[in-house]
């Protein structure tokens, strides 16, 4: 967010505007400019002390100014009124309005000070509601609402492969051949590609392992971003004859060159290749995510540009001027039709999908966040209902006061305005407290890894957009809960309320009932949502990952070049570490993702020509992998040292057997993976079948998988070590790392974790949603309970006389108790029924977050309703008990 340099910060502008409105003219002309100047100085000083959080510092400085400013205004206005009394210095109508506004404000402040208990409860309640909203809105604003940091981000789309009849949101990678076909044939959109890559930088101290990106087909031109220094990559860099170049991200530039602008033009050694640094990107630039620290041009030779069986290119596009995404989509569909015809072997099932780039970046997080935003909105509504109730109770106490004001000539509107002013003062105070609560809550949220793992989490900040939002909802809340008493009191007849002992409260009671019922209903909805998530989470935690697990340590190693001996040799040394039971490698640790895949071909049942084979996942393992992780053998045998490249044997899992060998015996059949002219191995025999694992995450179905021995794929470079230990897994971590470092000091060891860490990480997003919604639901429950308690206590107080008569006439305590509880139960029942209806309608929206429970799960609803009813009945029991203790004589005499 850059500001034109000459425009003063927001807080200074606000302060200047306040001075212009509040100060009397003379004072304003004399001092306003100078005061603004001094305030700007103070604000700058505060911002410097606060480490550059300018907006926040400005807000704090502004709040600090307010008491002094209000005092100054009141004093000077009074003085100037006294000076000019008799001269009728009333040239400014705004002055009169302002005087009566100041009067209202003063009166409101005084009246709130008189009842500190009420004020405190109201401000704290509001702070809770507003704070929750502020924090969640900050997250939503950063992740969902802010525009992407590229030129005209709304014109950017993501393009990817899907299957005919499959989901239109599939965005699979494509092959170079297809990519360049698409690019040539589109007019409505300019396409570019990228592919994540890794690199080790050497030559300056310790080697450092970085994530980066290969840019294909002019990526930076499509993004439309300017570098901080030098130039971006251009498409001509992708010609193999050109000098190899690289563009660095800001963090890498700072680490390697200490922000020295002379870095551009120097050479950097990446994966052993010397590259010319041509540009440095600005600090805020991220593509596709914060991981990528460098960008290099792809260098495909003519042959590889036509490759159609290596799917690794992700595609984005910028819509041509005037073109819409629908036009681009239609064009891509037509291109897909052509490709299916021209290359049936590769594309028999192809469809090309397109959607806004932002949607693919935000992905499934949107639903998660919107559910939370809905939940905090509910919390705020409940807060408002609670405050409305508090104010109504207060209003009935102040009937007399208001009636006097009416009788003394205050118009209905004036009284209503006074009451509304009070609510707004409360709302602003609550909003300010809510801002602090929101800041605290947000820092709690950001302390959770799941929050920082959200896409675009770096853009989450409590800035002026959030401040505006907070101010807006605080005022809206103030108006909402202030409406009830203002409306009710404004309506009351002046004469009626002045009569002593007026007991007609029926008019007010229904409003309070409505508020309590809506509180209960809202709480019911929130509790149902939280209950469903809780059950999902419990089910998710109970999911059998498919292997025995236990004490397992894992970490990832990526070799810089193929080295067949590296993994077996290091494994041998790791096995020698005391406390290690067994050790193996796998190309990707289970539960952490699908990993790589290839076309699956049965040699005993070749596909007809022109049909694209199904792609299946494969994992490259050392033979000990299955025993180490505890994966059970179902048929045949496990891999052994005899399964080498010359005579490969592979193992498949049950999901693959079910899919491709239904009703057949898979063991003994022959397969190959890959395209006919580009195979991972020539042919291999299936020697065994093992159990399924949930590789794509605990909540996902097992994927059909082929396990290939590392010995069959000697060029393999990326592996996760899997080490089963006797004692706690972390104890061998240091020794295991030492083994790797000793074998090759230049290798980066990443993601050192225990199996428990991996499992916890897999359910972390579910845990996050569940915890947050659970907290909000608990708040809702507490407030609804207080609401029930408050209303019934009020009823008992108001009906003291009536209940006293009942008792005097011989009503048993049980009868009286039942009467009061019965009244409570009617409210509770109404709330629960309404809430149930609301929950059934709304929880459908969170189906994507649930695992193993339907959104209409009767057990959850019954449980939640029972909890709510139980607690609400307890809340109504106490007022009921008080009712039975009414002394009839006292009650009758009291008026």
């Amino acid at each position, binding site marked *: 967010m850059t500001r034109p340099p000459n425009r003063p910060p927001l807080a200074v502008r606000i*302060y200047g505007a306040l001075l212009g409105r509040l100060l009397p003219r003379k*004072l304003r002309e*004399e*001092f306003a*400019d*100078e*005061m*603004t*100047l*001094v*305030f700007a*100085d*103070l604000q700058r000083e505060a911002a410097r002390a606060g480490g550059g959080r300018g907006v926040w510092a400005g807000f704090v*400085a502004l709040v*600090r*100014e*307010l008491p*002094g*400013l209000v*005092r*100054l205004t009141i*004093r*000077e206005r009074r003085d100037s009124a006294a000076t000019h009394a008799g001269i009728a210095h009333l040239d400014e109508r705004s002055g009169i309005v302002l005087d009566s506004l100041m009067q209202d404000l003063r009166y409101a402040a005084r009246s709130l000070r008189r009842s500190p208990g009420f004020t405190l409860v109201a401000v704290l309640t509001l702070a809770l509601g507003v704070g929750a909203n502020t924090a969640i809105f900050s997250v939503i604003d950063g992740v969902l609402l802010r525009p992407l940091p590229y030129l005209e981000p709304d014109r950017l789309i993501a393009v990817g492969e899907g299957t005919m009849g499959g989901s239109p949101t599939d965005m699979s990678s494509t092959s170079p051949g297809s990519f360049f076909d698409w690019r040539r044939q589109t007019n409505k959109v300019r396409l570019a590609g990228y592919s994540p890559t890794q690199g080790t930088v050497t030559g300056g101290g310790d080697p450092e392992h970085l994530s980066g990106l290969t840019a294909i087909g002019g990526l930076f031109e499509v993004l439309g971003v300017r570098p901080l220094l030098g130039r971006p990559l251009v498409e001509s860099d992708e010609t193999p004859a050109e000098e190899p170049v690289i563009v660095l991200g800001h963090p890498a530039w700072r680490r390697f060159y200490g922000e020295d602008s002379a870095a551009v033009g120097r050479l950097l050694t990446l994966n052993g290749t010397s590259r010319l640094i041509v540009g440095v990107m600005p600090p805020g630039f991220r593509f596709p995510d914060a991981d990528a620290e460098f960008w290099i041009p792809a260098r495909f030779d003519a042959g590889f540009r036509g490759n159609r069986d290596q799917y690794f290119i992700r595609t984005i596009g910028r819509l041509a001027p005037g073109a819409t995404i629908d036009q681009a989509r239609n064009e891509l569909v037509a291109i897909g039709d052509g490709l299916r015809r021209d290359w049936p072997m590769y594309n028999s099932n192809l469809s090309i999908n397109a959607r806004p780039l932002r949607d693919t970046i935000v992905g499934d997080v949107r639903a998660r966040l919107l559910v939370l935003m809905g939940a905090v909105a509910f919390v705020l509504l409940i807060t408002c209902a609670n405050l409305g109730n508090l104010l109504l109770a207060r209003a009935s106490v102040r009937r007399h006061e208001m009636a006097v004001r009416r009788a003394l000539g205050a118009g209905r509107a004036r009284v209503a305005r006074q009451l509304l002013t009070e609510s707004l003062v409360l709302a602003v105070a609550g909003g300010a407290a809510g801002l602090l609560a929101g800041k605290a809550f947000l820092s709690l949220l950001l302390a959770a890894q799941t929050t920082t793992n959200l896409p675009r989490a770096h853009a989450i900040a409590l800035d002026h957009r959030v401040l505006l939002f907070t101010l807006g909802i605080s005022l809206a809340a103030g108006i909402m809960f202030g409406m009830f008493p203002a409306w009710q009191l404004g309506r009351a007849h002046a004469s009626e309320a002045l009569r002593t002992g007026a007991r007609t409260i029926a008019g007010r009671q229904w409003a309070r009932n409505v508020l309590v019922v809506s509180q209960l209903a809202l709480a019911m909805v929130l509790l149902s949502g939280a209950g469903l998530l809780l059950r999902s989470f419990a089910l998710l935690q109970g999911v059998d990952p498919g292997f025995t697990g236990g004490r397992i340590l894992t970490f990832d190693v990526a070799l810089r070049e193929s080295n067949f001996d590296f993994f077996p040799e290091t494994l041998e040394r790791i096995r020698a570490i005391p406390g290690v039971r067994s050790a193996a490698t796998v190309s990707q640790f289970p539960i952490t993702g699908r990993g790589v895949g290839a076309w699956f071909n049965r040699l005993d049942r070749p596909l007809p020509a022109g049909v694209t084979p199904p792609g299946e996942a494969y994992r490259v393992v050392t033979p000990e992998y299955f025993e180490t992780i505890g994966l059970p053998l179902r048929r045949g045998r496990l891999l052994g040292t005899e399964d080498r490249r010359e005579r490969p044997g592979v193992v498949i899992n049950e999901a693959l057997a079910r899919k491709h060998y239904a009703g057949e015996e898979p063991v003994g059949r022959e397969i190959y993976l890959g395209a006919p002219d580009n195979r991972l191995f020539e042919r291999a025999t299936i020697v065994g079948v093992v159990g399924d694992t949930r590789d794509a995450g605990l909540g996902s179905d097992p994927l059909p998988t082929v396990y290939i021995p590392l010995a069959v794929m000697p060029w393999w470079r990326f592996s996760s070590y899997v080490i089963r230990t006797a004692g706690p897994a972390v104890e061998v971590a240091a020794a295991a790392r030492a083994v790797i470092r000793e074998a090759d000091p230049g290798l980066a060891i990443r993601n050192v974790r225990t199996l428990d860490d991996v499992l916890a990480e897999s359910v972390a997003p579910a845990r996050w949603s569940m915890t947050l919604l659970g907290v909000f639901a608990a708040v809702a429950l507490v407030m609804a309970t207080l609401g029930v308690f408050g209303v019934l206590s009020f009823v008992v107080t108001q009906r003291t006389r009536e209940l006293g008569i009942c008792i005097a006439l011989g009503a048993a305590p049980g009868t009286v108790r039942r009467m009061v509880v019965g009244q409570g139960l009617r409210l509770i029942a109404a709330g629960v029924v309404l809430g149930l209806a609301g929950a059934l309608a709304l929880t459908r929206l969170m189906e994507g977050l649930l695992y193993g429970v339907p959104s209409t799960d009767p057990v959850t609803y019954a449980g939640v309703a029972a909890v709510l009813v139980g607690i609400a009945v307890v809340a109504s029991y106490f007022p009921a008990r008080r009712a039975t203790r009414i002394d009839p004589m006292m009650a009758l005499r009291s008026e």
Partner: protein
Amino acid sequence: MPARRDGGPRPLTTPVFQILLSLVDQELHGYAIIQDIARRTGGEIRLTASTLYAAVKRLLDTGWIDEPPRRPRTDRDDPRRRYYRLTALGRDAARAEALRLERLAGMARAKRLLAPLRASSTTRRQ
């Protein structure tokens, strides 16, 4: 208030007294006054723009401070800033307040609430 029966000076408010103190030996503009006070009090008293000018207005009205006819020359001068200086009246008022405070401190000392004044302790306080 019994304190005023003898016709002695009314106690000054903290901002007023601090502003007078800042201007005893120098002519300053608004922001410099705030900074000077904050520095002298170790950050304990930090005036806001509104409290500063509320006091400045009163001080100008009572004639305890005024604007010097010529601006002091500083390296970073901003023509929009106004400088203020202490008048003879203001100096008297500040001195009277300081004496009042000293009298109060003396009373506290006489009751042994504060340690008795010694030469070393005053130098240390500098």
